[in-house]
C-alpha cells in the first residue's frame, strides 16, 4: 500500500511489529509489538543488551526480514509481507546500510565499492563514477579513493561504508554498531560524520548501538529489552553537549563549505 507522501512524513515507521522465529517445534518470540518512528533529519539511537531483539528489528526496518505481524512503512511505502520479492527494490531505493564489520568488497577499491553500490541501484557509467567520487569526497577520503580495503584503517573503512550507504541518496540510513570496532577518537569522528550527513542532507538515521557516545549525536534514544520498547525519550541537550564529538575531517571542499555556513550563522 502506498501512503500519500506529505512534507512532514516520517521516513521510517513501525507499528506493533512482532517477529516469531521457529526453532524446531518451539516458537521464539523476538519482537513483541514494537513501535518506532524516524523523521527526516532525525537521529535515533536504538540501545539494548545482547538478545534484546535490536538487530532483528533493524533487519525488519531494513526490509531484510519481514515481520510476523505489524506495519512497516519505509519512505511512504508500506511493506507487504506477502510480497517479499518487492523488498530488494525498497532496499535499493530507500535504505543505506552501515555495518559493524564494514562488509566492504575486499577486491574493490574504496571508490569502486561505492560505485558498485550505485551500479546495483541503477546508476551506471560516468554518472555512477561521478557520484561515487562525490560520496568518497564527502566522507573525506578522496586521497584514499583507489586504496583497497586492506590498506585502509578501521575508521577509513567505516567512512567508505558510509559513503556506500549514501550512494543513491536513500532517505533512510541504518547503522549497526558502527563504532564498535573503532577506538574512541575514530568513533567520535565517525559519529560526527553521521551527524553532519543526517542533518545536512535531511536523512533519517537509526543507529543500533551499545556505545554510550552515540547519545551525543542522537535526537532520541530508544531502549529495547526482551523485544519491547521500554523507553523512547528525546536526548537531553545537556547530555548531548557533555559528549565530546570530534569534528570529522572532511575534504577541503566540504571544510570550506562548512566554514562558510558557520560564518553565515554567526
Amino acid at each position, binding site marked *: 500500500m502506498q501512503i500519500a507522501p506529505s512534507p512532514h512524513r516520517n521516513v521510517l515507521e513501525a507499528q506493533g511489529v512482532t517477529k516469531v522465529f521457529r526453532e524446531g517445534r518451539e516458537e521464539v518470540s523476538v519482537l513483541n509489538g514494537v513501535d518506532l518512528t524516524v523523521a527526516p533529519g532525525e537521529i535515533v539511537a536504538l540501545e539494548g543488551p545482547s538478545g534484546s531483539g535490536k538487530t532483528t528489528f533493524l533487519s525488519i526496518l531494513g526490509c*531484510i526480514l519481514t515481520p510476523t505481524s505489524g506495519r512497516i512503512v519505509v519512505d511512504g511505502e508500506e511493506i507487504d509481507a506477502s510480497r517479499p520479492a518487492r523488498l*530488494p527494490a525498497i532496499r535499493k531505493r530507500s535504505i543505506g546500510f552501515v555495518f*559493524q*564489520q564494514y562488509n566492504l568488497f575486499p*577486491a574493490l577499491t574504496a571508490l569502486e565499492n561505492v560505485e*558498485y*553500490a550505485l551500479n546495483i*541501484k541503477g546508476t*551506471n557509467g560516468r554518472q*555512477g563514477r561521478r557520484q561515487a567520487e562525490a560520496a568518497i569526497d564527502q566522507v573525506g577520503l578522496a586521497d584514499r579513493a583507489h586504496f583497497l580495503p586492506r590498506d585502509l584503517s578501521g575508521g577509513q573503512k567505516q567512512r567508505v561504508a558510509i559513503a556506500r550507504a549514501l550512494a543513491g541518496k536513500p532517505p533512510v540510513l541504518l547503522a549497526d554498531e558502527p563504532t564498535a570496532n573503532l577506538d574512541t577518537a575514530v568513533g567520535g569522528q565517525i559519529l560526527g560524520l553521521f551527524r553532519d550527513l543526517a542533518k545536512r542532507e535531511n536523512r533519517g538515521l537509526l543507529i543500533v548501538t551499545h556505545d554510550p557516545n552515540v547519545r551525543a549525536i542522537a535526537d532520541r534514544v530508544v531502549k529495547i529489552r526482551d523485544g519491547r520498547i521500554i523507553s523512547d525519550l528525546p536526548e537531553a541537550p545537556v547530555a548531548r553537549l557533555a559528549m565530546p564529538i570530534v569534528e570529522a575531517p572532511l575534504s577541503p571542499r566540504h571544510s570550506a563549505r562548512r566554514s562558510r555556513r558557520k560564518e553565515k550563522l554567526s
Partner: protein
Amino acid sequence: MPNLALKNLLHDKLRSVMTIAGVAFAVTLVFVQVGLFLGILDNASVTIDHIAADLWVTSRNTPNVDFAHGFPETRVQRVRSIPGVARAANLLVQFLNLTLPDGAEEGMLVYGLEDFKRWGIPWKIDSGDLADLKRGDYMFLDASAERRFGPFAVGDYREVMGYRVKILGRTRDALSFTTSPLAFLDYSLVQKLAGERMDGRSTYILVKLEPGADPAAVAAEIRQRLPWNDVYTRADWAKRSRGYWVASTGIGLNMYLTVFLGCLVGVVVVTQTLYTSTMEHIKEFGTVKAIGGSNRDIYRILGSQAVIAAVIGFVAGRLMAFALAPAMAEIRLKLIIPTEFAGIVFVGTLVLCLTAALVSFRKVSKIDPALVFRA
C-alpha cells in the same frame, strides 16, 4: 561498472589459477585425445584422401583400404569403356613381409600402381624419382619405417618376400592405421612379390571422371557392369575405412570415455573451486543483497567468473595442445584439431563451466541477507 567477478578472480589468485588450471587440463585432455583419435583415423584414409580418384571400385564387402582382396584385373577395361570415365587404373594393396638385416621379418603395406605420378601418390617425396620404379625391383619406402625397420638410406637393399628390392626413394607421412609403414612399388612388381594368389588380379580400380560427369550416374553404371564389385565415391570410401576401425577396435569408445572423464574432471574442479570461492565470499554476496542487489546480480558475478575461467582455461588448454603437437610428431603421432572442433570445445567449455556454477547459484539463492549483521 567495477567488474566484481574479475576483481574477485584477481584477488584470489591462487584459487583462480587452480580453477583455470582445472579447465585448461580438461581442455588439453579433450584436444589431445580427440586430436590423436582424428590423427589415427586420418591414417585410416590418408591414401584415399590423397589419391586423385573420384570413384573407387573394390571387391565386394571390402571393409577398409588396408584389407583388400583381389578380383580379375581385366575388369578395369570395362570401367574404362563407361561414358564419363576419364581414366581408370588398377591399384594393388597388399601386406608383404620384409626381411630386416638382422633376419627378423616385419610386415609392410605395399601400394602397387603403374603410374603413381598420375594419381598423386605418394604425396610427400623426400628423395627419388617415381618414374624410376618401372625400371626394376625398386621401391619407395616411407620414412616412418625407420621406427620398425631401423635406419635405411636410398640405395639400400631389403628382402621383400624373398626378393632383393632396392630402395630408390624416401617418402613422408604415409602411414597406415595399423602403423605398418607404406611402400610404393610398380604394379607388376607387387604382383610378382605377392605370388600366385595375385597373379592377374587387382584389389582396386581407381576411377577419374571427366569434368562435369555425374559421379552417381557413373557409379551406377559401374555397378551394373561389375555386379560382383562395390563402388564408392572417395568420401564414402574414406568414411567406410575410418568407420571400420572406430567400430571394430574400441578406439571410439576409448576416445569418448577419455573425453567424458576429461570433462568430468574439469567440471568437478571448477564446481569445487567456484563453490569454495562462493562460500568464502558469502558475506559479500549477502552485502550485495543488503544494498539492494537481487539473486540475478549475484548469478551475474558467479556466471562471469565461470565464463572468465572458461575462456582463459580454453586458451591455455588450446596452447598446451599446440605445444604438445611437435612432441607427438616426434613419435609419429598426428594431432589433428580442426577449427570447427576447437569451436565445439570452446562452446562445451563455456557450457560446462556455467553448469559448474549452478551449484553455487543454488547456494546463493538461499543466502540470508541478515548474515551481514553477524560478526
